[in-house]
């Protein structure tokens, strides 16, 4: 059983249901994490400062066509989490909510890399080229840098003490944005799903508002990037941004471009778990990231 290098083709290939597919090399995947913490993301040397990954979103940009796709991954997705002790020694794996994987890094970089690996494994080893983790302080900064974001209440929702009814228009400013996309009532079963809908909506509207502004100010993405320093940990460079922005000027992001990992919420123990539907996820991954080799 010898290794034969000449039988390996260039590129990433998979076989699924008897057909061959190739990973589209024009697609770059960014794993975006929202960390439920206010401390500066880069600093936390103590594990307790790391927080949990409350929002987990994979942004896929096709740099050739400029199209964007967004894959939302529920924080409660049940996966084998790699557990490390305080010294960074690997202890083993435990099936837990995906959000907990972030906790086990000694540094922000460790945590991000653990999350990238966990999400990549979940998506059947799809390559993830970049990551970006932002904490709670980053949200008002992002929001206000484009002059605020308008949304329409999808359900009855309370923002900073004010109750809005389904259908009410809301102009999100400052901490309102944080509350809108973060708030969930932990006493309500599957409340993280409702929040996911709000997050999708916010992203869509944010994108539309931002793109309109960027057309008038091409340096806006870089200045947003700079203003997030201290509240963001990422391996995206300024060069990456200046490369990507021109590719995406005519891009729109609609609800059709957003998907969620298929599965269902259960309650195996004290915490909710989101159990992935493996067969449906396979279909999604193949359609999302691969093209059939003809």
């Amino acid at each position, binding site marked *: *059983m010898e290794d034969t290098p000449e039988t390996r083709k260039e590129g990433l290939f998979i076989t699924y249901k008897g057909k061959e597919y190739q990973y589209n090399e024009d697609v770059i995947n960014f794993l975006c994490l929202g960390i439920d913490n206010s401390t500066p993301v880069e600093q936390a040397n103590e594990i307790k400062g790391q927080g949990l990954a409350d929002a987990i979103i994979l942004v896929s940009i096709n740099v050739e066509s400029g199209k964007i796709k967004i894959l939302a991954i529920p924080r409660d997705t049940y996966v084998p989490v790699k557990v490390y002790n305080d010294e960074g020694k690997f202890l083993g794996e435990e099936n837990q909510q995906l959000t907990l994987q972030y906790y086990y890094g000694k540094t922000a970089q460790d945590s991000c890399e653990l999350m990238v690996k966990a999400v990549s*494994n979940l998506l*059947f080893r799809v390559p993830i080229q970049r990551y970006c983790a932002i904490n709670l302080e980053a949200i008002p900064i992002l929001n206000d840098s484009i002059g605020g974001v308008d949304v329409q209440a999808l359900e009855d929702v309370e923002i900073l003490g004010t109750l809005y009814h389904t259908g009410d228009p809301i102009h999100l400013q400052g901490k309102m944005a944080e509350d809108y996309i973060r708030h969930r009532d932990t006493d309500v079963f599957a409340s993280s799903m409702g929040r996911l809908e709000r997050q999708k909506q916010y992203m869509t509207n944010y994108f539309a508002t931002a793109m309109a502004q960027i057309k008038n100010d091409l340096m806006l993405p870089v200045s947003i990037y700079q203003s997030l320093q201290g509240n963001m940990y990422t391996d995206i460079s300024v060069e990456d941004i200046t490369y990507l922005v021109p590719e995406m000027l005519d891009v729109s992001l609609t609800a059709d471009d957003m998907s969620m990992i298929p599965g269902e919420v259960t309650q195996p123990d004290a915490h909710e778990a989101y159990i992935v539907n493996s067969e449906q996820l396979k279909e999604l991954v193949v359609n999302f990231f691969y093209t059939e080799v003809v």
Partner: protein
Amino acid sequence: MDYDKSDHKKHVRGRRKSSGKTGLIAIFVVVVVLIAGSGIGFFIHSSNLKKEAAAAEKAKKADPEEAQEQYEKLKEQVAVDAHDPMFRKIDFAAAQAVNPDVYAWIWIPGTDIDYPILQSETEDDAYYLNHTIEKKEGLPGTIYTEKYNTKGFVDPVTVVYGHNMKNGSMFAGLHKYEDRAFFDSNPYVYIYLPDKALKYRIFAAVTFDDRYLLGTYNFSTPRDFEEYLDELRGSINGNVNIDVPVSQETGILTLSTCIADSPNERLLVNATREE
């Protein structure tokens, strides 16, 4: 045949003067008959040699149907069933009398996989891929491990190889695990050693490339072990059960066989020790 025609011509010429033409023709005919006779004799002799060689070759060559019958007979001879698979007994002394390289036995209930496992310390790595338990050359080979795995099934990863035979024998039965219902309802593999029985729980049956596993990873390092485990569980082509806990302590038993029509891929059925 060291026949020198020129010597004989001189001899004939020498005799011509005394015996005359008839004698010459007679001698010529005798010579021709001798040559022809030797030629035919030589031809028959070498043909016989070839036949003997062919027969010897045939005796050394394995025949899959015959080999399968032998495996069946061996099983009947050495395996003593019990109600609890953990109490099944294998007569290793009898098996080793057939071939001392037998050191373990594998049984997967729900399939026809019920074979001795061999390992050679001296032959090349692929010896038992194409030699049977009787050391005859050819298919179906045996179920075997390479000398890089210890024989106690305590390594982090043990790789067991077997052919995917068209007649359904050897490791062909592993392909049943491509069906999810079968995968869910037949999760156990039993490995028998002279001093104990081991129960394994199947956690992944996946299509993998044909890389040489024991050469690609250093499974004793947690990083390589985890990487392999991630790759197995992250395979989009196959069945995986993430509820089965797998660690370096419980190890991975990888059963490897070929996939028809796909020579650059392998079907790997992977299990881990369960208490």
